[in-house]
């Protein structure tokens, strides 16, 4: 059971990576990066989970408890991905304020033009 669930979450990671590389719009790249991060976290939790796990809370209960360690680690990486996202959105905002376009190629050409124009 866990094999299927983790393979599907890996497929979502692959989809996110394809979007990240092929999309020309900077914001779409950020969205697909967000997809990659969320599905990697999902993969981490799913790969160690078994059928019918119980939440690792409280003492009693017969069913097998889910492994608490990946859940504790994943909490940290959710916050990390949020931090990365907030900063990259901030930087995109600064770029769009200057260049009025979200297309990565146009941004790259005008960045190189600005760098050459600005005398040392």
């Amino acid at each position, binding site marked *: 059971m866990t094999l*299927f*669930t983790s393979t*599907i*979450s890996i*497929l*979502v990671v692959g*989809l*996110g990576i*394809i*979007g990240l590389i092929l*999309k020309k*719009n900077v*914001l*779409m790249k950020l*969205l*697909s990066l*967000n*997809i990659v991060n*969320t*599905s990697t*976290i*999902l993969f981490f*939790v*799913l790969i160690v*989970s078994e059928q019918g*796990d*119980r*939440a*690792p*809370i409280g003492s009693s209960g017969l069913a097998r*408890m*889910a492994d608490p360690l990946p*859940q*504790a680690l*994943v*909490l940290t990486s*959710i*916050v990390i991905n*949020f931090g990365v*996202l*907030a900063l990259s*959105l901030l930087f995109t*905002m600064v770029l769009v304020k*200057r*260049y*009025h*376009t*979200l*297309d990565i190629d146009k941004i790259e050409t005008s960045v190189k033009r600005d760098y050459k124009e600005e005398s040392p």
Partner: protein
Amino acid sequence: MILFFLFLLLVLAGAVLIQKRLLNAVILLGVFSLTSSMIYFLVGAPDVAVTEGAIGVAFVTFIYVLALSDQGKLHVVTEEIPPFFYQDKGRIQGIEYEILQQLADQLSLDLEVEFVKHSDLPSQISSRRTEIIAGAFYKEYLPASGLNITLPFHQASLAKIVDTQIENAPIGTLTDLDVTDIKEIDAERISRFNALEDLMSAYNKEKISGFISDSARMSIALNQITTQKRKTSEISQVSDINYTFAIPSSEVELTDKLNELLENLTKTGQLEKILDRYLR
């Protein structure tokens, strides 16, 4: 049960990537995080479900929507002036509209047009929402400072129609025309009208002996003159004007993008085709 949500996840990820509008993509991303939070709950990880729900669904979507709330719009402020920019049966048409639409597609933005009366055009420039001012705009048209003038897209002339019989009545013109610097008309004999219709009605009732207007409106004005008036009035060239767009000087990037577009439109001859469709 989990497999259903996982396939939903796959479909949502694909949907996010295919979206054309960014706002839809962001909302779908929110749903994507919500499904993943649901899966966490089913797998027995409530802690992660709550955190993913709080941060992944609510906060991230808020930030995206806030940053995007005015996503990618090109604001155009214009006066309704056929054949340049006018609404016909709910559909916006006109020479300038087609040019700006091509610019918007190039910048992958949506064109948002705001029709406004001539009097509050200066106030529009000050409010920082406008990016382009259109509507048969030419240099003498609006002495507002802080405007970049783009390349002209259409040469035309300022024409004057005079009714030979009436001598002493003042010359009428539209309020927006800045005709003070044209030599042969002395300033005080000009009466200003703020709309084309009452200028024409004044001319038909001989309140004014003639009027000056740019050639674009001249073509509309001509068919409003009553037939017997047409016999006694003749048209004379006053000075040539070229129609351009005006962009607030802070938007340097936008100005040279528009100039670029105008250049290759004239080169490819598309501009001529648009002008033919509307003017000739």
